[in-house]
């Protein structure tokens, strides 16, 4: 597990999905980068932090049965690669649903949840996870 500072320094991106926009080429990136991989040195001074809307569609997904210690609390759990509406892909857990309800293309939105805990009395790390949404913005089962 990462040390607390290693986690905290990424908090703006983990809590609010703050990414990076290159104003030289107009592309979005998440997580933030130091330079734009397309524009290289031309992007220096032309980038800005941008908050992702947090909405997108499942690009691929899996249900994890065996894995990392800190995620074993609730096994199995679902991990998806999500293509955000800004056109960037991110990896994260999908919660509050059954794997059978998901398919490639399912709409999801990001929500702030507990990611992991360091030790029994340790620091709790928070970050984004995804929940499925209907096209009208409601989650399945809301009706």
């Amino acid at each position, binding site marked *: 597990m*990462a040390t607390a500072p*290693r*986690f905290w320094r*990424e908090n703006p991106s983990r809590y609010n999905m703050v990414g990076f926009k290159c104003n030289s080429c107009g592309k979005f990136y998440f*997580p933030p980068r130091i330079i734009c991989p397309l524009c290289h040195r031309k992007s220096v001074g032309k980038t800005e932090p941008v908050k992702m809307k947090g909405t997108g569609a499942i*690009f*691929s*997904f*899996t*249900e*994890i*049965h*065996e*894995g*990392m*210690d800190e*995620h074993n609390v609730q096994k*199995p*759990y679902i*991990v*998806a*690669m999500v293509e955000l509406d800004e056109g960037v*892909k*991110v*990896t*994260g*857990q999908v919660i509050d649903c059954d*794997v059978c309800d998901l398919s*490639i293309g399912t709409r999801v939105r990001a929500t702030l949840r507990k*990611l*992991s805990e360091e030790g029994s009395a340790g620091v709790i*790390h928070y*970050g*984004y996870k995804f929940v499925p949404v209907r096209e009208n913005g409601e989650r399945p089962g809301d009706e």
Partner: protein
Amino acid sequence: MRRVAVIGVGITEFGELWDSSFRKLGIGAGMSAVSDAKISADQIEALFVGNMSAGRFIRQEHVAALIADYSGIARDHIPATRVEAAGASGGIALRQGFMAVASGLHDIVVVGGAEKMTDVSDIESSMIQSSAADQEWETELGATFPGLHALMATRHMHDYGTTREQLADVAVKNHRHGALNPKAQFRREINRDVVLRSPMVASPLRIFDCAPSSDGAATVVLCPLDMAKEFTDSPVEIVGSGQASDSLGLHHRKDICTMGATRAATERAFKMAGLSQKDVDVAEVHDNFTISEIIAIEDLGFFPKGEGGKATEEGLTSFDGDVVVNTSGGLKARGDPIGATGVAQAVEIVSQLRGTADKRQVKDAEVGLTQNIGGTGATAVVHLFRRV
């Protein structure tokens, strides 16, 4: 650039080798390669060691110096260098050795690869392996190393209609090949049902879709081609070497069913060799998961994109097929001691081209290929070998 030959190979047994330490494994493979090459220790000019994570597996860094010391070549103060590129550590070490000889800097170079994985628990081993992915933006958000490959598998099945059974066929074939290899970790044939009924790891991948944790080491000895006949009657030339990188995180790739780094490394290796895919008789590819072999045989250009599963099902990658893939049993059955894997692939191909692969010999094999991957494809290295 000078032409480079392999003049000696050595490999330990692969498996859970509780009575063997890291240094015992490394020296064991090294001694057999040096004796196979019929060179004496004082002729060695440089050592490269592929190793991913001795620091976490056995709490020992600085392992190139360790191997040089315990093999008795540190007395001559030869340069000893560790090479790390996660799962591709061994293949990249081979490329470093190749470049050292090709450039004219050194004549006789030893390339080893070693990993001792089973001194830590299975969960610890999984976590170490996942450090080949992006720790901050994949692993800490819940993705495991098998999980990332499961994302590729889900998408490959969706885009190309690859079936769960075709994934199983990769494991079945590689176990069938491994059963013919006395050094393999698993020497037992399995059928589709064994794979399909094994415990789920990350859907759709089950335990029999995954390479095991292994201990083991492998070594090759290189020298300029024009010196090779002094040492051996059956030198094998390294005719092509290609290396490439890609984004560390899988999610940064436009297409997760293609490893762009494999494609680039393949193109570079074939260009250097002046050969094409149809020339290749035998290949060792990086089947750390069954889906990885399907993606590999497509990206290497043996089969069109999307047809790797079908080709495997039809037997085109086994004996009597178009190209025999993973005669050693691959990572799945031979075993995957990470840093050793890329060098073990070279040992297998050299044995095939020398005609010494016994029961798993591919008839009249003349050209062979190795493909070694780091992480989910952030590093790829491809080598082409030819019988002299």
